[in-house]
């Protein structure tokens, strides 16, 4: 079940995240994300501007793709579990691109004190429909023990 509570015992080193496949990027989503985030850089909205800037066409905010990657983690391990998430933007995401987010567990660290959560380190990536990496990254999620 989606959004089910996940415990530290439910994931192991090497466990793979269920891939999150997002719908094709449409201009309206970039416009909505601009409004929601406050990033009104015309390079994401205005084809003439993007061309003049040498980018060929508009492209998605990197932060939108990072939002997808963060969603892939919280869909899997739970909202509120993310202690740290960091990404590198490897390639731009274009209109029509289908972004798929993937991840796996690199390490699972037991609580330093008896009652704290386990910390789960993840390797993350996002790719377009051609299999080209658009994001690489890492995250740390906190998961409770079944105890």
């Amino acid at each position, binding site marked *: 079940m989606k959004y089910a509570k996940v415990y530290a015992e439910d994931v192991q080193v090497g466990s793979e995240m269920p891939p999150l496949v997002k*719908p094709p990027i449409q201009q309206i989503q970039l416009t909505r994300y601009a409004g929601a985030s406050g990033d009104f850089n015309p*390079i994401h909205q205005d084809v003439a501007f993007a061309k003049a800037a040498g980018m060929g066409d508009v492209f998605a905010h990197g932060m939108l793709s990072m*939002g997808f990657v963060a969603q892939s983690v919280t869909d899997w391990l739970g909202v*509120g579990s993310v202690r740290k998430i960091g990404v590198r*933007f490897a390639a731009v995401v274009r209109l029509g691109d289908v972004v798929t987010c993937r991840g796996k567990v690199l390490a699972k660290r037991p609580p330093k004190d008896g009652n704290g959560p386990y910390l789960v380190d993840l390797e993350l990536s996002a790719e377009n429909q051609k299999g080209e990496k658009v994001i690489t990254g890492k995250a740390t999620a906190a998961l409770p023990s079944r105890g």
Partner: protein
Amino acid sequence: MPIQINTAVKGKEYPPYPVTVERGKIKEFARAIGDLSPFYLDDEVAKAGPWGDIIAPPTFPITFRDERSDTGALLRDLGVDIGRLLHGEQEFEHFKPIRPGQTYLCRGRITDIYEKAGKSGPMAFVVRETTVTDSDNDIVALVRGTTVVRL
């Protein structure tokens, strides 16, 4: 001919600014990403959840902006046009959930500027860090971003 940027702004601290998180803004942000978790969108479900209310998605602090320290201010400081910018890297560290109705204080500074050759020519990398604290003066989040300037 590559352009020059003003690297003297390395270390610059921007004026602190308060941000009050609006409930509707959290929902608008989650919907824009297409993340429809009820813990972001549904007040009733979230009320019965672990935080007693909705919380913000992990990348939400990117919305914490102030015109004295936003990308527009950075562009003025560096002396470059917005069309030259790319987003290189981004990181969020979270220590407490970000909640609607709370007012946070954001302190931003430029922690590093360096230049190197990229695939398509010379580039400058500008690293900014913003510390987000709550009314108890606890650090809620650290936001680190690397902006790439195509020189």
